């Protein structure tokens, strides 16, 4: 009896230890998974990455079919044709509905158009949504520098999954995330559609996102790209290349398009039109702070406030926040309050990001519908885009509001000066 009891005790203890080990391995402890995900650079693997980028950029002409499957069984099928210096055509078809969208760059203009009805975009309101819903096109003049194809692809709308790799790379534009690479490491060999590929893993921004590239040995072009983005929820995107062709002739008419008879030109409205107007009252809100407690806008009445909406995965936000930190250090006790608001990212990632970059200004973090109502409803961020800046005066009224980032932050300095809290041109450390 006693032996039996001892045996059962040992079995239970062993089972508990085994289960404890299993839970330890499967649990998402940030102290463990973050170091594992931040890739240490391997020169050979980094050379593969550089070789892939060089293969794309050195081509004079590039064509491939791509498809991007999603978790809900939707697939977007792309056909991409690009020619130096600035011609391109990208067609996309939604696998389930057979609707399509196209963007054509002919060297002078960029044309974007849809088959059938234009989808409802995040920048639409009731009025713009009613305008030019069918047989519509967008035309913009090409400016000097990279064509900005990724921006045009956003006009395709939500029915289509976006390409992961920026098509502008072909036109000698650096991938915007490249300066934020943690490292590149090899993941061995894995064939795609009978094409022998070397797989590399690239992590960015302290593993806020990771990309896997399957690089074909025969031409150094990717055959598959998988991107994992770690916000409050993890999202995975896949882009698969098929039949890439380099430097083969592409008929000139591929890059030519003009609107058929009866089509209407549609000018996409600016997302800034939804923002609070200058002089309007900035709505009060209370949101949880990233560290402890809560932050209310009304706590800063009497100070000039720069409210900054940001997310970890936006390189533009990185740059601006360094400037904001300097302002916080120099003017934080002189009537200027810098408030950060993040409404998309995982708490652990945000805390690590703030700590790594030495950012100490008050920051709110809330991914619930309450924060989204403040951001989308009260503060007019309809496309939920970042970075978004609001400068609010001592009287609680909006002085200025804008999307995006300027390298010299001139607009921000002008707004602060207008609010009565001027700052130096280049605040020192």
């Amino acid at each position, binding site marked *: 009896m006693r032996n039996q009891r001892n045996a059962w005790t040992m079995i239970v203890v062993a089972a508990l230890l085994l289960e404890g080990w299993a*839970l330890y*391995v*499967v649990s*998402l402890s940030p102290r463990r*998974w973050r170091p594992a995900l931040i890739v240490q650079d391997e020169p050979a693997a980094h050379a593969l990455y550089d070789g892939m980028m060089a293969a794309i950029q050195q081509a004079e002409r590039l064509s491939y079919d791509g498809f991007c499957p999603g978790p809900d069984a939707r697939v977007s099928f792309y056909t991409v044709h690009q020619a130096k210096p600035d011609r391109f055509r990208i067609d996309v078809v939604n696998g389930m509905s057979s609707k399509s969208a196209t963007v054509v760059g002919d060297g002078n203009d960029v044309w974007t158009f849809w088959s059938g009805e234009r989808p409802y975009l995040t920048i639409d309101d009731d009025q713009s949504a009613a305008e030019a819903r069918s047989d519509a096109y967008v035309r913009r003049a090409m400016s000097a520098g990279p064509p900005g194809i990724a921006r045009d692809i956003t006009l395709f709308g939500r029915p289509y999954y976006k390409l992961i790799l920026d098509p502008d790379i072909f036109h000698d534009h650096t991938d915007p995330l490249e300066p934020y690479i943690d490292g590149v490491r090899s993941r061995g060999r894995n064939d795609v559609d009978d094409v022998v590929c070397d797989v590399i893993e690239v992590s960015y921004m302290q593993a806020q996102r990771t990309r896997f590239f399957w690089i074909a040995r025969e031409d150094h072009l990717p055959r598959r790209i998988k991107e994992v983005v770690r916000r409050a929820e993890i999202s995975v995107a896949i882009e698969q290349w098929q039949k890439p062709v380099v430097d083969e002739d592409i008929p000139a008419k591929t890059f030519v398009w003009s609107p058929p008879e009866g089509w209407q030109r549609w000018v996409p409205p600016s997302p800034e039109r939804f923002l609070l107007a200058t002089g309007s009252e900035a709505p009060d809100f209370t949101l949880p702070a990233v560290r402890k407690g809560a932050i209310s806008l009304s706590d800063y009445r009497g100070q000039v406030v720069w409210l900054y909406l940001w997310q970890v995965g936006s390189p533009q936000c990185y740059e601006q926040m360094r400037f904001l930190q300097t302002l916080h250090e120099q003017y934080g006790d002189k009537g200027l309050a810098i408030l950060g608001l993040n409404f998309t990212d*995982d*708490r652990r990632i945000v805390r690590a990001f703030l700590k790594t970059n030495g950012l100490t200004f008050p920051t709110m973090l809330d991914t*619930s519908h309450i924060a989204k109502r403040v951001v989308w409803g009260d503060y007019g961020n309809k496309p939920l885009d970042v970075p978004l800046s609001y400068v609010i005066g001592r009287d609680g009224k909006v002085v200025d509001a804008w999307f995006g980032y300027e390298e010299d932050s001139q607009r921000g300095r002008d707004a602060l000066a207008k609010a009565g809290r001027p700052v130096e041109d280049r605040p020192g450390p």
Partner: protein
Amino acid sequence: MRAYELMKETFYRRSYIWIVHVSWFALYGLYWWLFLPEGPDFGKFVFVWGGFLLPLALSAGIFGDDIGSGRICVLVTKPFWSGELYLFRLLGLSFQAVVHLLLAGALVLGLHAVMDKGNTTDLGLWLLASWLLFNTCAALSTTLSVFVGRAFNSLLLLVLVAAGYFVMGMLMRMLGDNAMTGAFMSFVRYGWPPFTLLHKFAAGEYGPFALTVGKFSIAKDIACVVHSLMLAAAYSVLGIVILSRREFSRVRD
């Protein structure tokens, strides 16, 4: 002999059990024929139907019937440990699942050979994940059957799972990422049938190109298997304890 009899009982205790198996096979075949390759992976379909819905169908009233008819009073007075009743019935269910899933795999391979449709690459992993999920859900359903009358144990488990995920979704949506939702998520992730863990396991997401932890891929696969078996054991222990301590009325329903 006793074990064999108890396990065999699970195969024919209700007349519809064979109908369930045959219907499931027909569904697998129909799904393969109609929706592949356009539809989501076949493995996910088997995972839900074979891993979750099948144990609900097979374990409905597994103890509730005996309790309702009064037969349980005879069974628990037999000269053997009442926990054996639970254990061998659960093993019977698990064995049924093994046979069922192996036949399902054979059916799928046969359809693939004949119709040249679909992809069977990860089928083995999905069948294994389905069996692991089956064990966990069957154990939980059998435990519920010890104190829920008739065949309501399956319905109750179905409602609990649906409600749990609904509440989880609402909490995440309304409250976002905070301590309370984190605690609830941890409970669902580790204390509840491991739908997400096994889904990722079968989808190869703990493999070389993992979503979360890039290292320890084999260890993570093993940990998933261990954890799901331990969960099934924990639910079983709970069911055995309740069965052992409960006093049953001779009054029939």
